[in-house]
């Protein structure tokens, strides 16, 4: 199916574990983004990527690592999960990244216990 998909939809992990959230888009959009949504904060940008092998930090990058070896995939890794990283994570993509809408995945609800 065309679109942007995230996996898993739900994840519970323990403090200190490494966890990777996956994001795949079928549009060949150049730009991809990771946001987290928390009560009282709205959507905050974690990392973004302008193209394969080009990534940059957003507003809240600490504790996260991203890679983009292929245009269609943009995984987000929590190297050592903390309770403060309990959140809903959204991946998004856009064609140009500038003055254009972004398309979002359905989200991954991550709970760190």
């Amino acid at each position, binding site marked *: 199916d065309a679109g942007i998909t995230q996996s898993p939809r739900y994840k519970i992990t323990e403090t200190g574990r490494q966890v990777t959230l996956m994001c795949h888009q079928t549009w060949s959009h150049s730009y991809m983004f990771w946001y987290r949504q928390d009560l009282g904060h*709205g959507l905050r940008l974690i990392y*973004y990527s302008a193209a394969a092998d080009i990534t940059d930090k957003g507003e809240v990058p600490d504790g996260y690592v991203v890679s983009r070896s292929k245009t269609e995939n943009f995984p987000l890794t929590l190297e050592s999960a903390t309770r403060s990283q309990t959140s809903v994570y959204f991946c998004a993509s856009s064609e140009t990244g500038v*003055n254009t*809408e972004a398309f*979002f995945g359905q*989200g991954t609800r991550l709970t760190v216990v």
Partner: protein
Amino acid sequence: DQQVKQNSPSLSVQEGRISILNCDYTNSMFDYFLWYKKYPAEGPTFLISISSIKDKNEDGRFTVFLNKSAKHLSLHIVPSQPGDSAVYFCAAASDTGYALNFGKGTSLLVTP
């Protein structure tokens, strides 16, 4: 510091009436503004946008107004329907930035 602000966390409107959602921004470099709608357990979906060269954009029941001098935009929904009940996010971007800056969202409830 939050550059896009939605100061009303929630809004309740009767079906058939107008819903007005407000958004303020602080960065004068922003020149493109969007509204997203989000249902529970789903990702945000694009609703409507406006470029800074315009002061109004309309799409069916949805109209966005932009007042650049006041750094303020609003989304009008007329007439409101129960299916419009969702969280609405205001977002802004500049042509030098690659990501959208979001507000905290306003939860709209449309009652029958």
